[in-house]
């Protein structure tokens, strides 16, 4: 597989803060590559360096063989970028926004209208083509912003947190669209802090924590990391804040992590001793248990094992709830 993106020791420092710390990775052509990490991990900064919106402090990056530092304008002709914020023009209609992009990207005059209309149809916005962008819902704005990223048929599409702020249906539709890009041979580089999104979409995932890549692999291989230890999931009738602490104290050799609104997972804990302790703890504290399951590891479990972070750090949104 040819390399679409080659990154070596890429580093970005803002004063005392090391936002991206000597990261290296390759992305193959036609691959969907995910950058997974909590907010502040350096995902957006990496995209900004790769797309010319900020300059690396150190290291190199090549996109389709072109150097980001010296050939950025040529690179921009070949890449599409969808920033985290849907930043089109409120005062222009959906059609005019797309038309403006065709003009900026130098698409031949004879093809501009057709290209804009095709994308409006693909993204289900054709009926609203004359409506102002400012009047669109969040999901429609996101869809149109992604459409503008594809206006010049780029070879690589950078998507920064593509489904942030979208409702469940819009997010699912968007994932379908991203899946279709793979069929068209477009390389997709996406950042996300949604574990299930990375699991569903990506061929490979790089896990980024505090500016460093801690692991790169396929979702399946990442999950095998977690398979090495058994996991018990306990659902409580009502979650009490002290449950995680209480169980951690009683099971010091295991990791106890809160998951969702009423569950805890105990890693490395498929034993009678663990079950007995949990039941005793619940009984002693008048806590009702709904269910106890031995579960198949998910990407979330792999993430917890690899990074040592709680999944709650991934649930923190930059802008609005999910």
């Amino acid at each position, binding site marked *: 597989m040819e390399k679409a993106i080659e990154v070596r020791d890429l580093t970005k420092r803002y004063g005392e803060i090391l936002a991206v710390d000597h990261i290296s990775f390759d992305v193959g052509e036609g691959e969907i590559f995910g950058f997974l990490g909590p907010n502040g991990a350096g995902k957006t900064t990496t995209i900004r360096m790769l797309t010319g*919106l900020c300059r690396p402090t150190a290291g190199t990056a090549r996109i389709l063989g072109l150097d980001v530092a010296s050939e950025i304008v040529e690179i921009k002709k070949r890449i599409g*970028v969808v*920033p985290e914020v849907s930043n*089109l*023009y409120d005062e222009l209609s959906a059609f005019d926004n797309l038309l403006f*992009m065709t003009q900026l990207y130098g698409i031949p005059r004879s093809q501009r209208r057709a290209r804009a209309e095709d994308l409006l149809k693909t993204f289900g916005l054709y009926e609203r083509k004359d409506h102002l962008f400012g009047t669109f819902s969040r999901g429609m704005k996101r869809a149109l912003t992604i459409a503008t990223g594809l206006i010049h048929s780029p070879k690589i599409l950078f998507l920064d947190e593509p489904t942030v702020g979208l409702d469940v249906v819009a997010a699912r539709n968007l994932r379908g669209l991203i899946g279709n890009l793979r069929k068209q041979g477009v390389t997709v580089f996406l950042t996300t802090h949604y574990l299930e999104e990375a699991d569903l979409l990506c061929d490979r995932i790089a896990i980024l924590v505090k500016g460093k890549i801690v692991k790169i692999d396929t979702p399946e291989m990442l999950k095998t990391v977690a398979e090495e230890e058994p996991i018990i999931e306990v659902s409580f009738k009502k979650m009490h804040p002290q449950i995680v602490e209480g169980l951690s104290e009683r099971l010091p050799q295991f990791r106890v992590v809160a998951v969702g609104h009423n569950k805890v997972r105990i890693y490395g804990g498929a034993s009678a001793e663990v079950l007995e302790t949990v039941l005793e703890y619940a009984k002693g504290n008048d806590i009702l248990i709904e269910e106890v399951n031995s579960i198949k590891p998910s990407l979330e479990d792999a993430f917890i094992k690899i990074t040592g972070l709680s999944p709650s750090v991934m649930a923190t949104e930059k802008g609005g709830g999910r």
Partner: protein
Amino acid sequence: MWRDDLRGIFYIALKDMRTYYLKPPSISWGIVFPIAWILAFYLRNPQNFEQLVPGLIAMTILFSTTAAEAVVINFELRLGSFERLLLAPISLPAVLLGKVIGGTIFGILMTATVTLGSVLALGLYHVSVLYLVLIIVPSLLVFSSLGALLCVLVKEVFEAQTLLNLPRFLMVFLSGVVYPVSSMPTVLQYVAYLMPLTYTVDGLRQAFSSIQGITVFIDTLVLLGFFILFILPAVRLLYRRFA
């Protein structure tokens, strides 16, 4: 590459005309304010108003271009759409020049209206069109680039308008718009010659005067110098902002 940049400059300016010219800050600072000043001076002294025309045209150039820059740059910096332009295959200086041209065209519309209105209303048919062009065009570029330079320092439109008021009012009072530079104290005259609006007013006075000398060409050259003096650091500041 230069063709990409030229295309970018053209379409950014065109888009800004459609998108921002009717925004409230453009109207209040770029249209209403200069017109209010002109009316105030006219009502105060209608007999000698003819002498004030060059200064008032200069003031229109100053306010219309800087007000437009605050809108076309700071609206986009605030909403993040400025980055959208930087993602296109055009250079950063081309994006900024597109913004400067956007402000310049707004200034042309306002200045042409005020100039034509003054010429027709007061019968100033002896005006030199060549001199007007030689002074007005570089002046529009100078004050658009001054606007761009100050606007890239801040994020919000109101911050930009506030910051712009310092050079605006200094120039209005010290550059011969109302009081001739020659009648000011010597120290202030030195200060006046450090300000681009002084050369705009001087050049416009020559355009409207019956005796038209060659010093207008010097004014043009000085104004072009100011344009370079403002646009280069504006580009540099923008590079630093996206470093």
